[in-house]
C-alpha cells in the first residue's frame, strides 16, 4: 500500500467508531431504498390489478413516506458524521504537522519555500476531507448493497437474480480494470490541468520580467497555444478514458432494458406475478447505482490521496532526534566547545567536516569564510536546529545532546542578517510572550525614539514583515527582542550587513552593549566586525583552516589574509 493511503488509514483508525457509523449510515440508506421498492410495487399492483382505492393503499403510502423521511434523516445524520470524522482527523493531523514543524526546526525547513509548507499545513489538510465525506461511504455502499439486492431478488424471481448474479462477478473485475484506466486518465487530466495552471502562474509571476524584456506579447500567444495544446491532448486521453464509464453505463442500462423486456414477456405468458416483476424492475437501477456513485466519487478519492501524498511526504522528512532532558541554567556567559564535529543537511554532503574549537566564556568570536564554508552551520548546531553527525558539542562543559533544548535556547540571543517581524504590535514583537519591560529593551536597542514617533507608540501594529519600517529600524527591534531577556550566548549573522553607514554605527553600538560580558559568535562579512573580535575562526569548505587573533592571522599571511582583501570595508567608505 502506498504511503498516502497508509496515512489516510492511520487517520481513520483514530476515528474508527465514527467511521463505522458513517459506513452504517450509507448502507442503511441503501437498504431502506430496497424496502421502498417492494412497497412501491405493491401499491401499483393493488391499484392496477386488485381495484384497491386510495383508502386501501394509504397505510402502505404512509409507510413509504416514513421510509422516505427516515432515509432523509439518515442521509442528513450521515453527512454530519462524515463531517465530524473528517474534522477530527484533520484537527489531529494539523496538530501533528505543527509538532513536526517544531521537530524539523527552521534550519531543516529553510530549503522549502514558506508558501509550500503553509500550503501543506492548510490546503493539503483540507484536501483529505473528501476521503471520509465522499469516498468511504461510497465504498461501503458498493461492498454491501449489490449483494443485499441480489439476495432480496432471489426469492422474488430467481431468473432475474441469475441475470444480476451473472454480472456480479464481472463487477469487481470491471471495477479494477475501469478504475485503473479511469484513474490513470483522471490523473493525466488533472496533471495537465495543473501543468496548465502552473504555466499561467509562471507567466504571471514573471510578468514584470516579460514586460521589461519586451516579451509579453509573445507570451500571450504562447499561453493561448499552450492552453489549446492541452485541450487537444487532454481530450485525446479523455475520449478513451470515458469508454470505461461507457461500459459501466452499458451494464446498468442493459440490465434495466433486458429485465424490463424479459419480465414483460413472462408477464404476457403469465409466468410471473406482476408485483414481483415490478419489484425486480425497480431494484435493477439500484443494483448498479452504488457502482456508478463510486465512479463519480473517484475524483474525491484522488484529490484526497494527492493531498495525503503531500502530507505523508512532509511527515516523512527526517526530523531531529529528541532533545536531552537535563536542565540547563547559566548566568553571565557560557563557554562553547566543538570536538571533531561533522554535520550535513541530509544530502550526503558534509557542511562541516571534523571541526574542533573552543570559545571561552565571554569571548567575542568572528567566523569568516566563503559562502557555503559552514559558517551558519556552526550557529545552527549551537542552537540545536541541527545535530552533528559525528563529534560532540559542549556548552559550559556539558554535552549539548543531553541538555533540554528549550532550556539551552533560552540562553541564546539570535540576530539574523535579515530581520523578521511578526504581523503584531511592536511590543508583542519585542516581548514574544515573555514578561518584562518592553520600553527598557527599546531604549537599550536605541529604538525608543522611532517607536515613540509611530502612531500608537509600542502598541502600533506592524504589517506583514514589518512593512513601513526601514531596514535599520527593523534590526533595532530585533535587538530590542534580544535585550528584553539578555541571554549569555549571542549568535549573530552580521546583522548590520544591509544597513547604511550611519545606521550601522547606531546599531553596532547597541550590539556591542548587548554582547558586553557575554559570549558572542558572529558570522562576519565586514572588516570592522572581524577587527573587533577577540578571535577569528576561518572556515573553508567545511573545515576550520585557521584560528587566532585577527592581527596574528593577518601577519601570518594565510587564508585569512587573502580573505581580508575581499571583505567589505563597510563604513570605511
Amino acid at each position, binding site marked *: 500500500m502506498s504511503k498516502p493511503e497508509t496515512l489516510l488509514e492511520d487517520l481513520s483508525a483514530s476515528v474508527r467508531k465514527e467511521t463505522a457509523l458513517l459506513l452504517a449510515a450509507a448502507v442503511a440508506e441503501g437498504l431502506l431504498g430496497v424496502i421502498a421498492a417492494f412497497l412501491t410495487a405493491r401499491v*401499483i399492483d393493488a*391499484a392496477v390489478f386488485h381495484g*384497491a382505492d*386510495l383508502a386501501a*393503499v394509504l397505510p402502505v403510502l404512509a409507510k413509504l413516506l416514513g421510509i422516505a423521511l427516515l432515509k432523509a434523516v439518515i*442521509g442528513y445524520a450521515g*453527512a454530519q458524521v462524515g463531517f465530524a470524522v473528517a474534522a477530527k482527523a484533520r*484537527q489531529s493531523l*494539523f496538530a501533528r504537522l*505543527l*509538532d513536526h514543524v517544531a521537530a524539523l526546526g527552521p534550519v531543516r525547513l529553510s530549503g522549502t519555500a*514558506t*508558501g509550500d*509548507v*503553509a500550503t501543506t*499545513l492548510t490546503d493539503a489538510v483540507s484536501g483529505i476531507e473528501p476521503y471520509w465525506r465522499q469516498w468511504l461511504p461510497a465504498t461501503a455502499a458498493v461492498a454491501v448493497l449489490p449483494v443485499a439486492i441480489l439476495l432480496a431478488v432471489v426469492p422474488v424471481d430467481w431468473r432475474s437474480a441469475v441475470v444480476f448474479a451473472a454480472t456480479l462477478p464481472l463487477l469487481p473485475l470491471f471495477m479494477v480494470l475501469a478504475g485503473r484506466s479511469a484513474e490513470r486518465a483522471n490523473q493525466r487530466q488533472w496533471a495537465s*490541468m495543473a501543468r496548465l495552471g*502552473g504555466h499561467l502562474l*509562471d*507567466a*504571471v509571476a514573471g*510578468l*514584470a*520580467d*516579460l*514586460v*521589461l524584456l*519586451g*516579451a509579453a506579447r509573445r507570451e*500571450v500567444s504562447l*499561453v*493561448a497555444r499552450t*492552453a489549446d495544446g*492541452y485541450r487537444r491532448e487532454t481530450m485525446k486521453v*479523455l475520449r478513451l478514458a470515458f*469508454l470505461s464509464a461507457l461500459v459501466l*453505463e452499458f451494464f446498468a*442500462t*442493459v440490465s*434495466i*432494458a433486458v429485465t424490463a*423486456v424479459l419480465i*414483460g414477456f413472462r*408477464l*404476457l405468458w*403469465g409466468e410471473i406475478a*406482476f408485483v414481483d416483476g*415490478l419489484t425486480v424492475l*425497480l431494484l435493477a437501477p439500484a443494483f448498479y447505482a452504488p457502482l456508478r456513485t463510486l465512479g463519480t466519487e473517484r475524483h474525491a478519492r484522488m484529490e484526497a490521496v494527492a493531498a495525503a501524498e503531500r502530507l505523508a511526504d512532509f511527515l516523512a522528512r527526517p526530523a531531529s532526534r529528541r532533545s536531552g532532558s537535563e536542565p540547563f541554567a547559566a548566568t553571565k556567559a557560557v563557554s562553547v566547545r566543538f570536538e571533531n564535529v561533522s554535520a550535513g543537511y541530509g544530502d550526503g554532503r558534509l557542511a562541516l567536516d571534523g571541526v574542533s574549537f573552543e570559545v571561552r566564556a565571554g569571548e567575542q568570536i568572528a567566523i569568516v569564510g566563503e559562502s557555503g564554508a559552514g559558517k551558519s552551520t556552526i550557529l545552527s548546531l549551537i542552537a540545536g536546529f541541527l545535530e552533528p553527525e559525528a563529534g560532540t558539542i559542549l556548552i559550559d562543559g556539558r554535552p549539548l545532546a543531553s541538555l533540554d533544548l*528549550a532550556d539551552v535556547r533560552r540562553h541564546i540571543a*539570535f540576530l*539574523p542578517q535579515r530581520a523578521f517581524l511578526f504581523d503584531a504590535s511592536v511590543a508583542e514583537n519585542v516581548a514574544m*510572550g515573555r514578561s518584562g519591560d518592553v520600553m527598557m529593551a527599546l531604549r537599550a536597542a536605541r529604538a525608543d525614539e522611532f517607536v515613540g514617533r509611530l502612531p500608537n507608540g509600542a502598541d502600533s501594529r506592524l504589517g506583514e514583515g514589518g512593512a*513601513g519600517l*526601514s*531596514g535599520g529600524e527593523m534590526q533595532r527591534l530585533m535587538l530590542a527582542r534580544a535585550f528584553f531577556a539578555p541571554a549569555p550566548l549571542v549568535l549573530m549573522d552580521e546583522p548590520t550587513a*544591509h544597513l*547604511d553607514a550611519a545606521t550601522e554605527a547606531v546599531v553596532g553600538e547597541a550590539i556591542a552593549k548587548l554582547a558586553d560580558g557575554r559570549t558572542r559568535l558572529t558570522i562576519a562579512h565586514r572588516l570592522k566586525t572581524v577587527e573587533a573580535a577577540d578571535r577569528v575562526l576561518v572556515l573553508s569548505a567545511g573545515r576550520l583552516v585557521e584560528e587566532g587573533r585577527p592581527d596574528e592571522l593577518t601577519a601570518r599571511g594565510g587564508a585569512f589574509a587573502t580573505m581580508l582583501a*575581499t*571583505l567589505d570595508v563597510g563604513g570605511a567608505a
Partner: protein
Amino acid sequence: MRDLFRLLGLYRRHVGWIFLSMLVSLVATLANVGLMAASGWFITAMAAAGLAGVTMNYFTPAAIIRGLAILRTGGRYIDRVVGHEATLRLLADTRTHLFARMVPLAPAALDDLRSGDLLARLKADIDRLELTFLRLLSPLVVAVLTLAAVGLVLFLHDGLLSAGVLAVLAACGLLAPALAAAAASSPGRELTARSADLRRLVVDDLSGLMPLMVVGAFVGHRNRLVETMASLVEIERRLARRAALGQALGRLSGDLALIVALAVSVPLVTAGRMAGPDMAMAALLSLSAAEAFMGLPAAFLGVASTLASARRLFAILDRKPPVTDRAAPKPMPDGRDISLDGVALHYPGAIRPALENMTFDIPRGSRVALVGESGAGKSSVAALLARLRDPDAGEVRLGGTPIKELALADVRRTIGVVAQKPHLFTATLGDNLRLGRPSATDEELAAVIDVAGLSDFVARLPQGLATPVGVAGTTLSGGEARRVAIARVLLIDPDILVLDEPGEGLDPETEAAVLDRVLDRMDGRTVILITHARAALHRMDRVVELDAGRIVSNLPSSAV
C-alpha cells in the same frame, strides 16, 4: 448579479459548444428518465394483456426501450466528451483572456501579486471559474428543462398529477437546495475570512520559526494555531449542516414525488380515468426524474464561492494600468542622456513619498551608482527609468524627450533593467536567456553567458543550455539566477543598463568580476548600478546617495 452576467460574458465566444453540451446532457437525462417510465408502462401493459389473455403490440414499446437504452448509454458518453470539450475550450480562452488583460497592468499595478500567496489564490479562482460551466450552469439548465418535460408528460394525463409532482420536485429538488445554499452564504463568507486568517498566521509563524523557537514562544503560537483551526472547523460545521439539509431534501425529492404520484393516480385509476400502465409510467417517471436534481445542492453551494472568485478576478482586471502608450508616440530621439527633473512619486497607502523633488542628470556613457538604505527610493528610480510607473510630479527625459511621450516598447528596448528579484521561467536555461531576443545566435548567447560569468557553470551542466530551470526543473542558486537575469538583459543590447542589487547572492569576488566584465561590454553606454554594497563604487563615475526619497549627495566616486 452583475458579476454573474459578467462571468457569463466570459463564455460568450463558446456559446455554440455550450448549447450543444447542454442539449446532449438533456437528451441523456431524458433518455434515462424515459427508460424507467417506458419500462414501467411496458411491463404493466404486458401483465394486463397476459391476465386478459389477449395479445398486444409489444414491438413498438420494446423497440422504444431498446432505443432509450442506447440513447442513454451513448448519450452519457457524448455528454461527457462534449461537456469536457466545452469546458476545456472555455478554459483555454479564459486563461488567455485574463493573461492578456494583465499584461498592461504589469508590474506596477500587480506588485502585490509577487507574493506567492495571492498568485496561488488567483490560480484557485481561475480553476473554480472554469468548472462553473460543467458543475453549475449545465446541471441547473438541464434540471429545469427535465422538470418541464416531466411536467408536460404528466399534464397530458392529469393536471393535478402534474402540478403535485412538479411542486414536490421543484420544492425539494430546486428550492430547498437553493435556500440551503443561501443560508450557507454567511458562514461561507466567514469561512473565507477565517481561512485567510489561519493562512496568514501559519505563514507568519513559519517565517518567524527561528525567533519563536529561540525564545521558546513556539508552543504558545502552536496552540493559537490549533485554536484557530478549531474555530475554523466550527464555522465549517455550521456550513456543512446547512449543506447537508439541502442535500437531504434534494434526495427526498424523488421519494416524495413518487408518493405524490401514487396518491394522486390511485383514485384516477379507481375512477377509470387513468389506465394502469399509465399509472406505472407516471410513478416511475416521477421517481427517476429526481436524478436530474442530484448535482444541484453541490452546484448551488458553489455559487457563492464562484462569485467570490469572479469578484476577486474582476478586481484585478479592473485595476488601472499604471502607464499607457500615447495615441501617437514620438519617435525615439538620438540622444541617450537621462534627466530627472523635480520628480516625485508617492505609492498609494504609503506613510511618506518614495521620491521627493528629485533632480539629477545621467549623461550618455556615464556610470552612476545609486546608494542608500532599503526604502531610500533606489528601486523607485529604476521603475521610473523603465517607465513601469509615471511620476506624480516632474519629468523623466530621455535624450531631451519626456519618456511619457515615447512608445513603451522603444523605451524598454533602450533601457534594460535587471530587476532585484528576477523570475526564471519553467523552461530551459537557453529559453530563459533568449527571452528578450529569441532570434539571438549561439555566438551572441555564448558572449553574454561569458560576461555574466556563467560559462563554467553552463559547461558543467550535463544538458548544457537545454537544462530545465525554474519551478519544475533544477533550481538555480540565487547567485546563478541573478547572473542569468544579467545575461538575458545584456542579450537585448540596451543602450542604458540598470542593475538593481546585482551582487545579491554572489560572493564579493564573483560580483566584482561580473561587474567588471559588464562595464567592459557596456563601454560607451550608460550603466546605473543600484547597490548598498560599497565595494563596487570605485568602478563608477558618480555616486548618488538617496535617503527617504531625497538626494543626500551626488559626488564623483573619487570623492566618496
